[in-house]
């Protein structure tokens, strides 16, 4: 899989290249908006990481130009937190996700993988988080290598949580996903499903657990609190 990292800071792009290379990506580096546009036009990358602050132009222009020539590859933008407007403008211009600088490399890799696993993404349909492994096509879940049996709804919930591993999944998102697959009109409310799910993860020795964030939603994270 081939990624394009558009970043003018050599030391940063060097680290990104080596870290992404370690997990099997081929990484090209573009240090300017001009190089980036040329590379994106010539080569069909699987994804791109775009720093919005480039020396010779606005990263946003690269983004818009890429979308205009019909390239739909996932693009993750890097922005500074103090440039909220950039972030919003980036998402509006067709970015798929964003990270604020300074960021953790692990977080960046997780986000890139998540983007590539999206429907239509090039990465296999297998989600991994902790010692959980979920084949989103075959609907098979293994916990520490051991197959686990979950109901369809619980699996759907877990899939959402794994896709956003370490990030909050709002209640509303889960509700929306469940309504899509629920045939039974008097199904259990989400807290009940979460409760079941938690018990089964615990029983199967999962390294992760589902935390409830009152008033907001749920989050799948390492067992700590």
């Amino acid at each position: 899989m081939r990624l394009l990292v558009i970043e003018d800071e050599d030391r940063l792009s060097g680290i990104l290249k080596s870290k992404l290379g370690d997990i099997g990506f081929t990484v090209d580096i573009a240090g300017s908006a001009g190089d980036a546009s040329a590379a994106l036009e010539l080569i069909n990358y699987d994804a791109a990481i775009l720093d919005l602050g480039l020396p010779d132009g606005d990263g946003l222009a690269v983004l818009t130009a890429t979308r205009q020539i019909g390239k739909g590859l996932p693009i993750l933008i890097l922005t500074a937190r103090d440039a909220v407007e950039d972030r919003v403008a980036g998402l509006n211009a067709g970015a798929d996700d964003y990270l604020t600088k300074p960021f953790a490399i692990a977080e960046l890799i997780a986000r890139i993988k998540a983007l590539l696993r999206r429907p239509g993404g090039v990465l296999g349909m297998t989600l991994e988080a902790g010692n959980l492994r979920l084949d989103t096509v075959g609907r098979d879940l293994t916990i520490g290598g051991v197959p686990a049996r979950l109901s369809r709804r619980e699996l759907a919930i877990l899939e959402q949580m794994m896709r956003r591993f370490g990030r909050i999944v709002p209640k509303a998102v889960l509700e929306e996903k469940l309504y899509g697959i629920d045939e039974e009109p008097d199904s259990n409310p989400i807290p009940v499903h979460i409760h079941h799910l938690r018990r089964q993860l615990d029983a199967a020795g999962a390294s992760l657990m589902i935390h409830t964030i009152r008033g907001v939603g749920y989050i799948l994270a390492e067992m700590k609190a």
Partner: protein
Amino acid sequence: MSRRIKSLQLRLTVELAALFFVASCLAVGGLIYSASLTAGSLADRELGLRAEDLARYVSLDENRKPRLELPPPLNQAYSAAAQQSVFAIRDKDGQLVEASTPEIGALTARWPQADSEPSYFRLSKFGPLERDYSGVSIRLDSAVGPLSVLVAEVSGGNQLVHSILREFVFDIAWYVPPFVAVALLVAAFSVRRSLLPLRAASAQASVIGPGSIGLRLPEADVPTEALPLVVAVNHALDRLEQGFVIQRRFTANAAHELRTPLTVITARLETLEGNGQLSALREEVARMNRLVEQLLCVARLDSVALDVSSPLDLHELAEEVVGSMAHLALSACRTVALTGADHPVLVTGNAAAIADALRNLIENALAHTAPGTEVVVEVGPEGAISVQDSGPGIPAEDRRHIFERFWRGKGVRAHGAGLGLAIVMEIVRAHGASITVSDRVPRGARFDLRFRAA
């Protein structure tokens, strides 16, 4: 004068009052002086006429000796005021022709012959009345040759002239105090009115601060005399603003430039494998990352006026922020929660800034509450939002300091740089919102924010 009057208005008024007072005194004094001169010359004239009258009625008797023969009305008048109006007449040989009283006769005998030029004199405590007299002595030609005539009158006897004068002076003097008062009022009013633009300028000056360095003093309508000062102050403000802008740009640039190396350090640290020291190092770098972020936030708040005019849903915003902080809280063995209103709460403000404020409050609460506890964000109706923890609370004496930049409570473990709450305060201020700190029951601190409902 040891203590100088600082008020221009008061000084002008006092000085004008003194001027008016002196001028009025001079005018009235001059009036009285010239009036009394006139009165004096009137009296002198009358004495002279009386002397001529007396000389006219001197004639030779059967013994060819000079003798005074007054017509009855005059004679009556002189005898009626025998002591008030005295006279003495001598002939050219110095022989007394007539004297109205023996005292004046005796006095005249000792005097030299009078001259044709009138000579005026004063007598003090004279005669049986022991009063002051003023008189004239003059040589006059008559039917019996030159005569030396002396006429004197009790001083102040000329009551009529003096009373007229007194009345006149008092009539005039009566006008002086009201005139002075009106003039002073006009002066005070005009001074006050011409100083009004200066008052406006000082009102403007009092609102100039680090958050409003672009403001200048109004130069329109300022009196010409004060204009150079106002212009100079404005120029000084220009220079200060430049310095300020440079300073801020420096902070922003420095923080911005720190960010990339920090990202590189963070990334490199992640690739290293090691013992507990490494994770301590990672924590330290994470702290530094946060500090740089906060510095940038402060620099931004200082340099750009926040647009606080957009409508936003406080509940949705709180949901997003609490959600985004959940992982951070969990990795610190704490948790966060959102309670209160479960529906949109519309307020007017800047969503990104309010989110920043909330993030800083939650971070602060997480740092001060024990592991295993929950930081609660509560959204109330009408733009209220609170952040509550179960920590030790904030001592009353610290409450006015916690919002100062780089302030940290005593005995609090060095967690942050002390910028978080200062950022919160800046954002609250920019929104015209309010923030209060109180104790949470049964334990903990509670920050209450109230924004303007949309």
